């Protein structure tokens, strides 16, 4: 692996979102701030504690996780799609960047954007008193792994999409619904019995629950199962993305 090549690719990814900071950074900060204020602060004051933590503290990790995963997803998917659309991806294709460097460059680009978004939301959360850290190292681990998984998903969508409609489809039909149904605002027990059984198959449930445990110490699921899901997705998707770059799926055809 060549670090100059990798660093250049990461710089290139960052340059694209730094050109439109309102859209890529400020917008999720404002939307997360509103979620924290309305659901956590205003409504949360009228809801009992869950698992020994206030509703504001309970709901904050879910809001943070949703923004981290959607930020990394959007970065990788949009970044790759627009490079295909504008044909600037040919700069990468003619260069000696390896398939692994391509995979890592786009993934780290997504993680960095997610970390910038997440850091801003943490600051907003501090203002509302919504931030605690039961296990800071675990928090960093969950943040990076979740961002990496969704960067990898974003790469696949960025390669697959042939229109702006397709590019947004996964976000609309999968990411947003599964985040909301993955325990962002509620515990498993608050759901109807059938939904409780379905929820354990929703990987977002483990992302949010892991993040919540790292921040509040309250977990609604078996963390070992959650981590098996997370790491299986991380390594499985890494393998898929590496292979797609190797065969040049949708870019060298």
């Amino acid at each position, binding site marked *: 692996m*060549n670090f100059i090549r990798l660093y250049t690719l990461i710089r290139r990814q960052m340059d694209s979102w730094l050109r439109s900071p309102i859209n890529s950074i400020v917008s999720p900060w404002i939307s997360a701030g509103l979620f924290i204020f309305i659901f956590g602060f205003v409504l949360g004051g009228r809801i009992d504690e869950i698992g020994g933590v206030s509703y504001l503290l309970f709901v904050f990790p879910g809001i943070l996780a949703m923004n981290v995963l959607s930020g990394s997803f959007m970065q990788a998917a949009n970044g790759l799609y627009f490079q295909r659309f504008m044909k600037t991806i040919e700069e990468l294709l003619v260069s000696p960047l390896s398939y692994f460097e391509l995979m890592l460059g786009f993934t780290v680009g997504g993680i960095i954007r997610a970390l910038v978004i997440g850091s801003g939301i943490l600051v907003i959360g501090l203002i509302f008193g919504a931030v605690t850290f039961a296990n800071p190292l675990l928090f960093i681990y969950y943040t990076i792994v979740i961002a990496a998984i969704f960067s990898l998903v974003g790469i696949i969508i960025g390669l697959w999409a042939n229109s702006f409609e397709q590019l947004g489809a996964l976000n609309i039909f999968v990411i947003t619904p599964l985040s909301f149904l993955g325990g962002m605002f509620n515990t498993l027990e608050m759901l109807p019995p059938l939904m409780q059984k379905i929820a354990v198959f929703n990987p977002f449930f483990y992302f949010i629950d892991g993040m919540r445990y790292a921040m509040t110490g309250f977990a609604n699921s078996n963390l070992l199962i959650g981590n098996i899901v997370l790491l299986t997705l991380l390594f499985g998707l890494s393998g898929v993305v590496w292979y797609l770059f190797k065969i040049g799926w949708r870019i060298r055809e």
Partner: protein
Amino acid sequence: MNALTIKNFSKEYRGGTKAVDELNLEVKEGDFFGLLGPNGAGKSTTIHSITGIVNPTGGSIEVFGKNVVSEYREARALVGLSPQEFNADIFATPVQILDWMGGYYGMSKKDRKERIEVLLDQFNLRDHKKKMFRMLSGGLKRRVLLARAMMNSPKLLILDEPTAGVDVELRRELWQHLQDLNKEGVTIILTSHYLEEVEKLCKTIAIISDGKVAKQGDKHDFFKEPGGLESAYLEITKK
């Protein structure tokens, strides 16, 4: 040694369109090679397969003995491409475009900076180095792409219609520059619709038609025939 060896190369796109069919081609090191053919003959597909933009579906391509598929990193490090289409980031400046390209080739910051300074002067881009690519004229955009192709000091330079949309003055400047590069030992492959350009610059010429090499030889061989290169070209492409 051959700068480029293509054996039985084929490319079939999804949907079954066969762009190139069992093409064989050799380009000697130090040659200035003209690749001619009508639109859709397979020139760009061949160039894209040499440079890694497109995957070949059959045969083999080697650049200075390095296979472009199995030894892609080594092969690509030896090649520079100036494409037909403007494929640079429209919001980036020429300096950024060159800097990124140098980085993709693994050049250190110091080497990139020095090389960019040389290229800005060589291609008269110094006054435009901080302008966005989209703000540049067609000729200036072409210069940026040429400079980008030269960023890694390639041993094999591939120019796909490099003077399309370029004014006469720049065209002449570019011709001189390319001849100088060739004298320095850089192997150049040029595609162009301007036969005059190919006649002036190239030492060897191949005419591609229907995805195959229809005729290849020394430039002087084409001139010996009645009607010269133009006549040979028209005769082949008429079929």
